[in-house]
């Protein structure tokens, strides 16, 4: 009865959606606004390209090496020692990215709500939950993502209630400084969107007959649409103020007041977003644990889940002394570092693998 552990297309899409937007809603509008200004609403679109490359590479590689997770096929493609080194790099990347994810979540929670709760406690508690999820396996992460993603998305609908406060003049003049600021502003979002490559850790568990391509495109479209929607509302509501807010949606939710009953919904928003952060963290955590176990050829990755969790906690605090550094990291480091690992590396792998395949098929042909 193991076929029940297989993921379905919807679960795949939910995992991808939360992986990108778990912290995306928190970080992206403010970061992108630094460059794009009132072109903020456009910044999501260039990212589609990166997302498609990452996604395409993930799907292509999983078709070439069915049933293998990334580190396993990296070893297969690059050979033992180079494969080990690149795999180690991927493992470290997952650790570091999980650390940054959980740090962003922790800063968001302690900065906006639980001012007196120690950051370590907030981080450790969600990491513990994610660790339990990872130990339960990919199937459980996928199922819980499918159950939790609606909770994560629903509050966005409440933004519609802001309608009376929206100022359309903030959109004008469109592209006043040309396309370049928008492209600069789209660097961070495209970095976030390249994270869809992490789905390749889940692809070996996909049920047979699922049309991956369709669900991948659907989830990328959903990601772009929600981010567009959120960016649009941020700019329409806050205008030039957007850049000075830490979490724009949070501010937006404070404006909501309907029927003197729905007001000050930001705590509600916090609660909903915990869920998205959890899924994102669980995905990175799973990727880190899986790549570690593949790297060192462990029989059961469950053994190292909690040790990896402690490493993630270390990465979340180490070298990130303050919120300002995290923001700077998002603005200056992540746009280049994340796509390198999540789009460029898979692209190179695809090229290397297809050269290998061609050579092998030439060799296997009897008379050249």
């Amino acid at each position, binding site marked *: 009865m193991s076929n029940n552990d297989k993921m*379905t297309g919807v679960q795949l899409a939910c995992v991808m959606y939360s992986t990108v937007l778990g912290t995306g809603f928190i970080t992206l509008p403010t970061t992108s606004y630094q460059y794009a200004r009132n072109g903020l609403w456009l910044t999501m679109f260039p990212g589609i390209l990166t997302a498609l490359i990452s996604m395409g590479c993930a799907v292509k590689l999983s078709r070439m090496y069915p049933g293998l997770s990334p580190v396993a096929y990296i070893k297969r493609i690059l050979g033992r020692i180079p494969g080990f080194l690149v795999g180690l790099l991927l493992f470290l990347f997952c650790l570091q990215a999980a650390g940054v994810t959980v740090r962003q979540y922790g800063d968001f929670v302690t900065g906006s709500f639980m001012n007196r709760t120690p950051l370590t406690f907030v981080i450790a508690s969600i990491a513990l939950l994610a660790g339990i999820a990872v130990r339960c396996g990919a199937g459980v992460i996928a199922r819980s993502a499918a159950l939790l993603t609606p909770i994560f998305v629903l509050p966005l609908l409440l933004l519609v209630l802001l309608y009376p406060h929206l100022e359309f003049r903030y959109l004008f003049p469109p592209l006043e400084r040309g396309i370049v600021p928008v492209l600069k502003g789209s660097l961070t979002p495209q970095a976030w969107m390249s994270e869809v490559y992490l789905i390749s850790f889940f692809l070996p568990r996909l049920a047979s007959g699922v049309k991956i391509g369709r669900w991948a495109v659907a989830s990328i479209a959903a990601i772009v649409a929600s981010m567009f929607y959120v960016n649009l509302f941020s700019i329409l509501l806050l205008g030039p103020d957007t850049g000075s807010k830490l979490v724009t949606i949070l501010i937006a939710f404070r404006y909501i007041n309907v029927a003197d009953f729905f007001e000050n919904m930001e705590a509600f928003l916090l609660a909903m977003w915990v869920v998205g952060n959890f899924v994102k963290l669980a995905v990175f955590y799973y990727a880190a644990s899986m790549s570690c176990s593949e790297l060192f050829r462990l029989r059961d990755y469950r053994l190292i889940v909690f040790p990896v969790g402690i490493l993630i906690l270390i990465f979340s605090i180490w070298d990130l002394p303050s919120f300002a550094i995290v923001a700077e990291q998002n603005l200056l480091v992540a746009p280049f570092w994340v796509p390198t690992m999540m789009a460029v590396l898979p692209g190179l792998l695809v090229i290397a693998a297809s050269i290998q395949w061609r050579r092998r098929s030439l060799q296997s042909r009897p008379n050249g």
Partner: protein
Amino acid sequence: MVRYRMRGSAKTEPQPEPVPLSAELARNEQWIRSVCSSCSDVVYRPFKIGGRTSALLIFVDGLADDRGIEDFVIAPLMREDALEAIGLQEMLRQKVEASDASELETLDECVVRLMDGYPILLCEGELNALALGLAKWEMRAVEEPAGESAVRGPREGFTETLRINTSQIRRIIRSPKLKMDSVRIGGYTRTHVVVAYIQGVADAAIVEEVKSRLSRIQADGILESVYIEEFIEDNPYSPFPQLLDTERPDVVCASLLEGRVAILTEGSPFALVAPITFSSLMQAAEDYYQRYIFSTFIRWLRYFFLMISLLLPSLYVAVLTFHQEMVPSSLLFSMASSREDVPFPALVEAILMEVSFEALREAGLRLPKQIGSAVSIVGALVVGESAVQAGLVSAPMVIVVALTGIASCMIPRYVASNSIRMLRFPMIFLAGTLGLLGIMMGIIALVLHLSSLRSIGLPYMASLATPRVGEWKDVLIRAPWWSMTKRPRLTGTFDQRRLAPGQKPSKNRG
């Protein structure tokens, strides 16, 4: 210690060579008498067949049909005089007017059948004994199921007698494809357990899995189907029921038609159904017997109140303790004024009230009916009212607790509502310490647990977490019958189609 001894005794259960029947009646009688010594309810009735051959009829008083024994066995045999002509075997076959008579060869078998209630007939000079199908005992009549009442729909419920229960199912599904495999479980009780399923509809792997799990049980006794449930469930540490228990034959039949397996236990009016999903627990029998639009509405209400039942007290505590800004100002003022005299923090107040509500509920359930109403009056009215007046708890908290109590009754399965009610307490603690964040943590933990749970191999959240449009026809909505053309997908291969498509009625179809 007790458990160790039980396991030990189950393992070392004496399995000596079966003792064959002797041709001497006296030796057989002596053996049985020694095994059944001090069993005052075993009756030995010696008589002579045709006035010559001695015979002995042994039965358990109260388990055998006394009149039947006299009229159909002893009387015809005593009258018989053609013994020499046809021989004993043939004569017994002709003259004993019992619906079922099986021949036994060993004394051990005789004792086993005797304890099942079959009268045993032993004859001088015979190496075989007869077990007569004349078992009969006092049993409860078929009544309306107390725990699952419905306004519309069949009113029959299961009883403690297994054969009545299986006949009720057979009366609904009159097909030889309905299989009922029986097993005996329990060293001393030797409880009859029947595994029912429809061949070709139920996944053979599930049936095999259920049977193999049943065959693994080694216990001294099975008194209720819960014993079996706890032995065969997938995760013994979960607060959630992983098998559905029902006392309605129609619910069992509906589950069988969906490809599930039912387990019926002698002595328990509750049948177990497996595998189930979480949404099975939110479906009441009556959903299918009233108009589907209303049923859908009720189902949505049920899911909503499930959330209320789990979360309302903790939300109240979280909002009062951490997120006062979320409450609209006017409401906040009235809440604050009602809490002015209350000496406790909201967390303590909530725990206090919820615990006393649970105590009241349990007391009302266990007390004799005559004083049950007194408890509810004293508990609910006097204590509740005076607690508010004395300023120990605030009126909004009483409202919250009462609403939660009602909400938990919205869950059609009593066992499921128990687990939700219990989970309320950790939720209240989380809310009191971490506010909404804590509640969300609790929800995530709960979702994780539910996603990892399985019922006989089927993921517990299968229909909700693996959304397929076709399957939501019976989860979030109750689709009309003519549109439910497919069975829910459980595990493995199964017969998908359950009714012919295109049966939607309309005035044009005449």
